[in-house]
């Protein structure tokens, strides 16, 4: 400090500044790319698992609140149903051990599992089933309650037998019983459904920290045996990068659909991790407004179907993860068949069809929600359309607010792209009132007849409906989004196929641990 502060030349200062800047930059780059040798993944033992999930439930009550996040967490894990949809999409026993169907297929007699208790100790009986099914009609305000409209009445035969009478035969109803609308609650709900969940499943919600995490605790008195894990912590990490960092830092053990396809490709190289790809019910759909020109002309819609290389779209938007399907039907559905050959990628035929329709110099607007997969897919689609002479102009819509308002509610669009996540939503999407405005006059009666028929008639009838919808090209399914799970190698029992809205954790366990812990 005592030195004179004048008398030095100014020029070397600049050079030194430059040197300092470079030194700093080099240090920081080195920090970025430093080898990944030292890290460990803690938490490999014991009976605790932390899972990163992207979308957080608003509350715990799916009877009054819509949104996939609530049933994703609670179904199967906390609330159970009479029947379960297994990983192959089959209807299997859960709280009902078996069921008899009357000859006219309108009466179902369910024989209930005995020795089942709710997490608060109450025994599970026929009264709970009757009350739960009745509540769908009286207390639910979520629109999915419509799936139980076909139920005329539910009666208790004895403590462990329930008779359900339908107003007409319905094949889809039994399947729907395996989704949230069939959840069994205690007959008397003396707790707040928004903040508490009392079900018959292996886990119970013990802590909710909004904006952060929900903690599930395993039950020792579950009918299926003690829950394999003592604690499941579900952390809600909206940002995929934050989720990947949490996994790599050992803060979480498993990412459930919370990383992007590109990130998963990177994580695949890590020998300590396993990547499990399952199917989902989320079809990414290029949707047309069938009400307005040019998409009221089936030739234009078919031309677009030929013009788009769906494999390339999936490779770009989802890093190649996913399944190519042609309709809003998943490979687990009984009436699934591979229809991807109906419209092969064929730009020449697309141009011919456009010419036939008099639309060689077509301009369309393209409303794209600001979601990563959608914007990526949209850019590729625009360039593929340009190859057949179509100019598509992208408008980015904030999701959900603006997209819902403009496209979904006001139908103020020509073409859009979005993932439809709900299970069995084919007939919802291709319904005349839906935002696509698809003319369902031909398929609606066929679908109704199929639903009321035998299971063979159902499968045959629905296959016909699906073929007609695909052929009409009211919207083009680009691909079926994957369920991408990245987890510590030590985790066992991962159920990757999201056949319903549930994230099924009931079999999840550490491979190294036996019971106890």
């Amino acid at each position, binding site marked *: 400090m005592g030195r004179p502060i004048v008398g030095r030349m100014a020029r070397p200062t600049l050079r030194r500044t430059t040197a300092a800047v470079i030194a700093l930059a080099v240090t920081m780059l080195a920090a970025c790319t430093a080898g990944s040798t030292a890290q460990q993944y803690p938490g490999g033992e014991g009976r605790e698992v932390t899972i990163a999930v992207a979308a957080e439930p*608003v509350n715990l009550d799916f009877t009054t609140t819509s949104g996939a996040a609530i049933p994703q967490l609670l179904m199967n894990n906390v609330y159970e149903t009479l029947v379960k949809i297994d990983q192959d999409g089959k209807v299997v026993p859960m709280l009902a051990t078996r069921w008899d169907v009357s000859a006219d297929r309108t009466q179902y007699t369910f024989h209930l599992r005995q020795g089942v208790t709710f997490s608060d100790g109450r025994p599970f009986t026929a009264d709970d089933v009757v009350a739960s099914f009745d509540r769908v009609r009286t207390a639910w305000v979520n629109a999915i309650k419509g799936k139980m409209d076909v139920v005329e009445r539910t009666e208790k035969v004895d403590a462990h037998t329930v008779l359900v009478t339908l107003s007409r035969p319905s094949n889809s109803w039994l399947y729907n019983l395996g989704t949230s609308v069939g959840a069994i609650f205690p007959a008397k709900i003396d707790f707040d459904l928004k903040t508490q969940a009392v079900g018959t499943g292996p886990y119970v919600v013990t802590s909710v920290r909004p904006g952060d995490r929900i903690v599930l605790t395993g039950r020792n008195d579950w009918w299926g045996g003690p829950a394999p894990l003592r604690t499941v912590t579900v952390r809600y990490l909206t940002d995929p990068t934050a989720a990947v960092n949490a996994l790599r830092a050992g803060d979480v053990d498993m990412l459930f659909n919370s990383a992007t396809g590109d990130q998963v490709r990177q994580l695949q190289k890590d020998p300590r991790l396993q990547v499990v790809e399952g199917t989902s019910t989320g079809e990414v759909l290029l949707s047309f407004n069938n009400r307005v020109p040019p998409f009221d002309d089936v030739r234009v819609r078919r031309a677009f179907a030929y013009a788009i290389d769906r494999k390339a779209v999936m490779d770009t938007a989802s890093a190649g993860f996913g399944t190519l399907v042609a309709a809003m039907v998943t490979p687990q559905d009984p009436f699934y068949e591979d229809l991807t050959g109906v419209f092969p990628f064929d730009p020449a035929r697309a141009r011919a069809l456009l010419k036939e329709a008099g639309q060689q110099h077509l301009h369309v607007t393209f409303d794209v929600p600001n979601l990563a997969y959608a914007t990526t897919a949209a850019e590729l689609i625009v360039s593929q359309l340009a190859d057949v002479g179509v100019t598509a102009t992208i408008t980015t819509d904030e999701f959900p607010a603006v997209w819902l308002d403009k496209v979904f509610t006001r139908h103020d669009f020509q073409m859009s792209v979005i993932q439809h996540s709900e299970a069995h939503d084919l007939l919802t999407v291709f319904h005349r009132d839906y935002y696509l405005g698809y003319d369902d006059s031909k398929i609606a009666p066929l679908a109704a007849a199929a639903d009321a028929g035998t299971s063979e008639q159902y499968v045959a009838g629905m296959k016909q409906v699906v073929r007609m919808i695909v052929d009409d090209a009211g919207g083009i399914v680009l691909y079926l989004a994957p369920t991408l799970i990245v987890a510590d190698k030590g985790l066992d029992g991962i159920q990757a196929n999201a056949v319903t809205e549930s994230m099924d954790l009931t079999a999840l366990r550490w491979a190294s641990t036996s019971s106890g812990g």
Partner: protein
Amino acid sequence: MKRQVGWLAGQLVATLALASALVFVVLRVLPGDSAVVALGVNATPQALAQWRAQHGTDRPLIAQYGSWMGGLLRGDFGTSFVTGRALTPLILDRVQVTLIIVGLGMLLALVVAVPLGTLAAVTHRSAWGTVIAGASQVGVAIPNFLVGVLLVSLVAVHLGWLPAGGWTPPATNPADFWRHVILPSVALGTVQAAIITRYVRSAVLEVMREDFLRTARAAGRTRAGALVRHGLRNAGVPVVTVVGVQLAAMLIGAVVVERVFVVPGLGSLLVDAVQQRDLQAVQSIVVVLVALVVVINFVVDLLYTVLDPRLRVVAR
């Protein structure tokens, strides 16, 4: 002092009235229907109508604004459009989190910046001064989130010393709280330290040219003694100004760091609320932020008069 508090109250009320009216109108102009976003694609028209009636969004705008203002006067922010829960405890909870990381970040910045900036000024023609000036130049140029991302990949992922993100309230588990709070505060503080270092440096340089320092030295003080006794206090005024401005910027800008470190603060709440068109939450959070900024400015005004008695005449 009494006059100043009165001035603050007046300023607070005027600013809040203006800001609340502005944000209220802007939010209503924003495209998107809160009811549709809240209830989702499966909502029936009846459910939508019921929701609008329940949340009062079907009433005239002036009535909606009036009841919001009425609630504010009672310290009640109303209920969230999305969760249906009371907003007041939620916002208070989140504002604490943000104040903690912003406060610690600023503290860290000052602890680093004041000595470093002074050193840089005193040694501004030597190697040290150059290195500090250069480093702070780089620091100013790096965005917060980049520091955050680098910290996560280095400290959390590669070294495994601290968690990559998340939050534990101090009351729940103090040790865990500190493990979670370090990285976000450092990320916020680093850039601020660089900015403030530059201001401290130039303020001290300015002061060093003042006649009164020369007089102090003539009166027998050492160079360092004169600077500490008479210089730093005078250099404090511009530094306090920039600290005030930066604090306000940090409160708003914390959202980026909150995202990177998954910290449930006010910023992330605001972003979520905008996305979900939870207008009630958005307008309430904005009012809280505006109030905080007004208070910060007031404290800065007070500090001026503490640091430099000459300004007391100017201050009302």
